[in-house]
């Protein structure tokens, strides 16, 4: 009996060894994904699970592509955009991204959403020479610069620097508490807050997306004597934090990150939202023509979602991709697309200021603006700051 099994194991291992003498797989080639009528693009984002809301980014990108197709496409070609689901699990992001590259033979990856999921694929995409735009905001993926990797969301450090500047100017000498989701962006933020505030940073308190409420975090911040709270997280938890603090009759000012003050926050927090400050690299005035246009596109081509910061940022990614595809000309190749991306210079969109990229700058944004909720509406406070 054992001999027979040993024999089988041997056969199996030999078969593996023999099959090892096969040819190296084809990989991707420079002509992938472009035909005379279509450009095949792809992205992997969470469509299911607890982080499914991040999928709004790719929904926004797809809306802009559909809008472009309806307007006649790009140099006679239409965009065919495939979005695959990874449920925000890196062990699925890798195969799904590989599937886009080797099986669907996409021309480029435009908008892989999420930090940990993008971390798992960006180096291999660079090795495979697939032009890729990540949607994470994580600065580490574009510094140092990799030739094929670009970033499509506003850089987190610009947001954070704007938050710091606002707090320093408005609440000098006040004790600062930091409330954040326990994730990489919070760690990143803390590494910038600590040198900026020193001993004034009296408490950092974190939460998980499985926490049903924030009462103990708020009590801890209050106990530590915090006078200003810098927040980093999603809209729901900002609303929970504000209502918990106000429920304890604590009128502490909240300075929140980009994207957490959206329509769902404003409607759930209601009157308690007044006074909350946020920073953003995107336009928020509902009367602004760019915002009106963006919302019209989203309403027409993505009717299943409510327009919000994530879908608008997705729309902006779509805008940059389409501009670069147009600029790359009729004779579209990956190298002409890369050159066009590196020469990105778009003067108007839902973003504040200009979107520019160069061979040394692979994130198009950098301008920030502080805003405050007044009577349920976001109003700009202070000036736009650009660059660092």
């Amino acid at each position: 009996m054992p001999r027979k099994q040993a024999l089988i194991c041997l056969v199996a291992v030999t078969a593996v060894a023999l099959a090892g003498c096969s040819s190296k797989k084809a990989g991707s080639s420079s002509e992938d994904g472009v035909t005379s009528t279509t450009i095949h693009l792809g992205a992997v984002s969470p469509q299911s699970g607890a982080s499914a809301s991040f999928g709004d980014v790719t929904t926004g990108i797809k809306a802009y592509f559909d809008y472009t197709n309806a307007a006649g496409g790009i140099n006679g070609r239409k965009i065919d955009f495939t979005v695959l689901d990874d449920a925000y699990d890196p062990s699925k992001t890798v195969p799904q991204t590989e599937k886009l590259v080797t099986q669907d033979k996409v021309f480029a990856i435009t908008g892989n959403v999420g930090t940990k999921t993008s971390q798992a694929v960006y180096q291999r995409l660079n090795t495979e020479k697939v032009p890729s735009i990540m949607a994470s905001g994580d600065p580490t993926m574009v510094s140092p610069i990799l030739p094929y990797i670009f970033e499509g969301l506003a850089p987190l450090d610009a947001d954070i620097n704007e938050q710091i500047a606002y707090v320093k100017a408005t609440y000098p000498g006040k004790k600062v508490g930091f409330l954040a989701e326990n994730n990489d962006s919070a760690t990143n933020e803390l590494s910038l807050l600590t040198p900026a505030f020193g001993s004034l940073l009296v408490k950092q308190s974190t939460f998980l997306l499985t926490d049903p409420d924030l009462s103990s975090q708020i009590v801890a911040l209050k106990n530590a004597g915090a006078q200003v709270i810098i927040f980093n997280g999603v809209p729901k938890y900002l609303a929970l934090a504000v209502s918990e603090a106000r429920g304890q009759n604590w009128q502490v000012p909240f300075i929140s990150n980009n994207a957490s003050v959206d329509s769902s926050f404003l409607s759930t927090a209601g009157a308690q939202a007044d006074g909350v400050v946020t920073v953003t690299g995107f336009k928020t005035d509902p009367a602004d023509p760019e915002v009106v246009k963006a919302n019209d596109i989203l309403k027409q081509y993505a009717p299943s979602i409510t327009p919000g910061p994530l879908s608008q940022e997705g729309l902006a990614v779509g805008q940059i991709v389409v501009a670069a595809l147009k600029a790359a000309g009729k004779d579209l190749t990956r190298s002409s697309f890369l050159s066009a991306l590196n020469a990105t210079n778009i003067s108007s969109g839902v973003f504040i200021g200009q979107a520019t990229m160069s061979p040394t700058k692979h994130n198009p944004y950098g301008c920030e603006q502080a805003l405050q909720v007044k009577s349920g509406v976001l109003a700009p406070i202070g000036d736009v700051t650009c660059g660092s």
Partner: protein
Amino acid sequence: MRSVLHGHPRLVGLVISALVTWLLNEVLFPTPLNGYLVVLFAYVGGVVVARLSRGDHRYAALGPLVPLVFLAQNSIGVTELTQILILAIAALGLDLITGWTGQLNLAQGIFIGLGAYVTAILASKHGWPILLTLPLAGLVAAAAGLLLGVLALRFDGVYLAVLTSAVALAGPVLLLHYKSITNGVNGIIVNQPQPPGAFADWLDTDQWGYYVTVVMAIIAVCISWNLLSGRIGRALRALRDSPIAAKGIGVDLTRYKVLAFAVGSFWAGLAGGLYAMTIGFVSADSFGLFYSIQFLTIIVVGGLSTISGAFVGAVVIYELSTNVQTIGFATTVNGVALSIPQAAVYAILLILVVIFAPKGIIGIFSDKSDWSRLTQRLRGGHNRSTDVVQAQADRPPIVRLDAPEDPHPAITSY
């Protein structure tokens, strides 16, 4: 022909399923076919052949493994198959704990995480060769599994489910907290190893990772198989089928329960090491409760207490959870097309599989099923159940001890 092959039905099954795969892949479907479909075909082929040649269907568990090696050539879905095999190795471990010793374990994912961190830390921070870290990843997870196994002895049923889910919840939180070791929420990037020396000309990184995983899967299957077909296997089977009787004949329940946890966690740790190697990025929040629950669905859908069930289940669950598409309808309401979202399709399919194949997909092929009767008939073998029915045809007359006119005298009447 049969006499020549007699005694080696498994080898026949393996060889034929390998051939089936090759045919499917190279001849019948010159356009790339999804890897998992090929594996499913190959598996079914392997089972049929193993059965027709009087082998036990369990031995066809190796069926899908051998043909897998051919798939890499086609360059389709290598990374996907790698991940499926990694899931299967960990599921094999969980099956030992949950399927064979009946301990509901919702924490398998955290042991994978543990193994992944061991590999990631040793390879990235200390420069170890990745292959060397794999056994260590398994051992560290096994040690942790041993601890949990001892703790689990105190609990049963729902309580064990809550204990293990507590571990599954607390594990990632603790891993995130000890930043100096685990790099916290930023995770650890692992440089994927290049194929060594002579292989470098033929294989790229993904293919190398794939072959390493295949070899590990084969080792895992061979060891599990040896374990379960011998004395321990008999004891575990007795334990599962009748715990009280097993205790009565001197099977040491405690020892096997703890042993199952340790060995099961070893496979999880090994799978974790392979995860770190092939994904190239490890972060603790990837190994939460829902990740763990996935393995439970794998072994139930595949078939509890079968080695092949872990592999079939891994294929089915992975494909259901990633490749199922939204089902759209032509009807629209307010301009929005009606559709069943992907996650709902997955959920519905999962429920349907469990309802219609309660013993798992492997159960469809098990001895008491219609399938086995069909193959028995194909082989012209005896079918005991038809014998029973036929024997009923003639029956002896009933002996009546009383006159038939008044057989039921009532005692009283009212």
